[in-house]
C-alpha cells in the first residue's frame, strides 16, 4: 500500500495529506501528491467513440485533458452536475486526467493510525480501487488507490485494442 508513507523517522507515525471529495452520498479521499489542481467543470468537448465514463476533453491552460466521470468509472450510477461539481486534475507519471466529482472538500492530514483495511462487508466492485478506509469522527472515508484506478484503465484499453 503505497498511499501513506509508512516508514516514519524513528518509528514516528507519518502523516499524509489527502484531498477529500464526495461522490453521491459517500466521502472519498485521494493522496494530494497526485492532485495537481481542482478546477470547476467547464465546457467539455465530447469525444465520440470513447468509453462511456469519458465525459470528453477540456482545455486546461493549453493542454487537452480527458475528463472521466469518476462515478461511472467506479461503477456507481451517474450523478447530476451541480454548482459544486469539480474536476480533480490528477497527474500520474506522464498521464494527466481530470476526474469529475460531485464536490471537492478540504485537504486534511491523515495519520496512519486512523486508516483501517477495507471491511469485508464493503467488498463491492469499487473495493478493487480502495486502499483502505479511514474514520474521521463519525464519518467513513473511502481512500482511493489512484494507481489501481489508472492501471485498470490501461489494461482495459489494451483489451479494447485487440
Amino acid at each position, binding site marked *: 500500500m503505497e498511499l501513506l508513507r509508512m516508514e516514519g523517522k524513528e518509528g514516528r507515525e507519518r502523516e499524509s495529506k489527502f484531498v477529500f471529495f464526495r461522490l453521491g452520498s459517500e466521502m472519498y479521499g485521494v493522496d494530494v501528491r497526485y492532485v495537481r489542481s481542482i478546477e470547476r467543470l467547464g465546457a467539455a*468537448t465530447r469525444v*465520440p467513440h470513447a468509453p462511456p465514463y469519458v465525459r470528453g*476533453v*477540456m*482545455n486546461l*491552460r493549453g493542454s*487537452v485533458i480527458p475528463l472521466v466521470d469518476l462515478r461511472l468509472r467506479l461503477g456507481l450510477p451517474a450523478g447530476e452536475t451541480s454548482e459544486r461539481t469539480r474536476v480533480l486534475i490528477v497527474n500520474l507519471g506522464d498521464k494527466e486526467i481530470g476526474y469529475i466529482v460531485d464536490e471537492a472538500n478540504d485537504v486534511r492530514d491523515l495519520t496512519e493510525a486512523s486508516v483501517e483495511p477495507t471491511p469485508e462487508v464493503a467488498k463491492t466492485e469499487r473495493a478493487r480501487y480502495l486502499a483502505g478506509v479511514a474514520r474521521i469522527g463519525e464519518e467513513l472515508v473511502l481512500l482511493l488507490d489512484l494507481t489501481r484506478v489508472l492501471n485498470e484503465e490501461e489494461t482495459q484499453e489494451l483489451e479494447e485494442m485487440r
Partner: protein
Amino acid sequence: MDDFDLSQYLALFLEESRENLDALNEGLLRLEREPENLGVVADLFRAAHTLKGMAATMGFEAIAALTHELEDVLDLVRSGRRTVDSALVDVLFRAVDTLGAMLDAVTREGKDDIPHADVLGELRLLREGKDPAATSSSLAEEDSSGSEFPEVPASSYPPYVQVVVREALRKGYGVYRLDVELVPDALLKSARAFLVYRTAEEYGEVLHTDPPVEDIEEERMETAFSLLVATSAPPEELRRSVANVSEVASVVISRVIAEGAQEDDASIRKDGRAPETGGSGPTSPEVSGTPQGSLPERKERRPSSEGREKLAQRRILRVDAERLDKLMNLFSELVIDRGRLELLSRESGNVELQEVVEHMYRVMGELQMLVLGIRMVPLEQIFHRFPRMVRDLARDLGKEVEFVTRGEETELDRTVIDEIGDPLVHLLRNAIDHGIETPEERRAAGKPPVGRIELVAYPSGSHVYIEVQDDGRGISREKVLRKAIARGFVRPEEAEALDEEAVYQFLFYPGLSTKDDVSDVSGRGVGLDAVKNKIESLGGNVSVFSREGRGTLFRIQLPLTLSILTTMLVGVEGETYAIPVGAIVESLRVRPEEVRIVGGQPVVLVRDRLVPLVDLAQHFRLRSIGESRTPDEEGERLVVVIRRGERFVGLVVDRFFGQQEVVLKPLGSYLAHIPTFSGATILGDGQIALILEPAAFFAH
C-alpha cells in the same frame, strides 16, 4: 520618358521601403537618446535618401516630396545649423509615420496621395529655422481641427442612433465611424469582428454597428463592417489599435458631426437616453506629456548588440510564402501516412519492408526538422516595432519608461510569429498603463522615477519563453482572490488550497478586473482572457508572477516544434471538428432529392462517382437516428468529400467554418486508441476541436 512596366518591381519597392522606414524609426529613437550623435544623423540621411530615390523612380511623387523635406531637415542637423530637441524629433517621427501611411496606401490602392499637408508644413517651418507651431505630444490636438478626417453627418443614421450620437457629442466626446475591412480570406469573420468590437470598447463605447450585432454573431456578414464609436481618446490611436487586430486589412476613420444640434436638444431631452455607462464608459485617458523642449531622461542601454550581430551574419533568402505553405502541408500529410505505413509494415512481417520503412522514418524525422526550420522566423520581426510603441504610449500616459529587449534572435514558427504580436502588444500596454507608476508615485515609493520594462525571449528545452516584466506596482494577490470569490469563480474554502500561480490565473478569466471600479481605458482583466486564448491556440500557455510594490512578470511558453496542419473546420451539433485538407476533395451542398439509397446506404452522385454518405452527427451519436436537424431553407445538406486512394466518402456536417491552420495537440495516451481522431487542437476562442483521422472512415 520610357513607359516601364514598373508593377513587377512594386513588391520589391514596398519591401525595401519598409526596411528603410524601420531604419528611420530606429534611427530616430537613437537620436532621441543621443541628440549629439552625428553618426546616427548620417544613417538617417542615407535611409531617407534611398527611400526618396526609389519612390521617385516608381513615380510616387508624394513620398518623394515628403522624404525630400525630411532630408532637408536632417541636413540642417548634420551641418550643425539646428540642434536636436524634442520638438524636432516629434515632427520627424510624424513624418516617418506619414510615410508609413503612404506606403500602406500604395499597398492598398497603388496610390500614395493621402493628406499630409500639415506634416509637410511643419517640416518646412523647421527648414526655415522656425519652431513648428503648436506641436504637442497629444495627438488629440492635431485632430481638434477635424480637417484630417472625412466627415459624416449624424443624420445618415436611423433616428434612435442619432439621438445617442448627439448626446455623446453634447457631453464632449468625439464620435467616429470606423469602416473596417478584413482580409479577403479571413475565416471566423465573426470572431474577428468581435475582437475589433472589443478593441473599440477599450477606447469608449460602441454606439452602433453595421451590420447589426446579431448578424455579425451569426456571421451574416461579408468582410467589411463598420462601427460607430464614442470616445475621448485620440481617434488616430483608436484607428491604429483596430488596425492592429490580425486579419484586418484596413480601417478608415471618419468623424461624425451633428448638424443643427441646437434645435434637437429639446427633442433629446424628451425621448433621448444617455449612452449607457457600463464598465468601460468613455473617459479621458491620462494625457500628460513631458514638458516641451526637454528630452526625457533615459539611461543609455544597448539592447543585445550580440543579438543584432547574429542576425546580420546570416545569409537571407527570399522565399515565396505560399510555396512554403504548400511544402508544409504536403509534409504534414506525409507524416500522417508514415504512422500508418509503420503499422502496416510491422503487421506484414516482411523484414525488408520493415527496414526500408525504418530508414524512411529516420529520413523523415530529419526532413521534418528542416521543413519546420525553414518556417522559423526570428522574433525580431515583431519586437522591432515595440520600442516606438512603448515610447509613444509612455509619453501619452505621462510615464517614464526604459524599455529593454533581449533574445530577439530567438526563432519561432511563422504562424506563431504572425499571431503572437497582438498578445504581446496587450501585455506591454498593460505594463505601461497599470504596472509602471507615475514618476511622482515612484519617487514617493523610493524607486527611481524611470520605470523599467523588459521583453525577453529565450529557448529552453523544446519550448520558447517570452517574458514581459515590469518593476511597477505589482498585482495584489489578495485583491485578485477577493474578486475571484466575489465573482463566484472559486469558493472561499477552496481558495486556501490555491498556490500563488493559481491565484493569478484568475486574471485570465473574462470579467475580472482588479482596477477599483474607476472606469479605465485599457483595464487589466479586459482582454487578458483573449490573450490567454490566443496563446493557447498556438499550443502554449501563459502564467503570471507578481510582488506588490516590486513588479509583475508575464511568462509565455510556446512549443518550439509544432505540428501544424491545414484543416477545414466544420460544425456538427454544436461541436467543431477539423478535417485535414490533404484528404479533402471538395465540399458541396447536396439537395435531398440528390441522395439515393444504394444497398441500404445513402449515396450521392459527385461527378459520375457514387459517394457514400456518413452523417457525422449520427456516426458520433451526437444526434439519434430519426431525429432530424432543422434543414436549410432549401433542405440542403452540407457534405465534405474525403478521399483515400481511389475511395471516396462524403461526411455530412451542419456547418462549414472555413480553412484554418491549427496546432496539432496529442489526445494523450488515455484516448490515443480511438481511431477516429488523430489529435485535438485549441481554437482561437479557447474551445477544443477534435481532428478527424480520415482513414477511420474507410475501414472495411
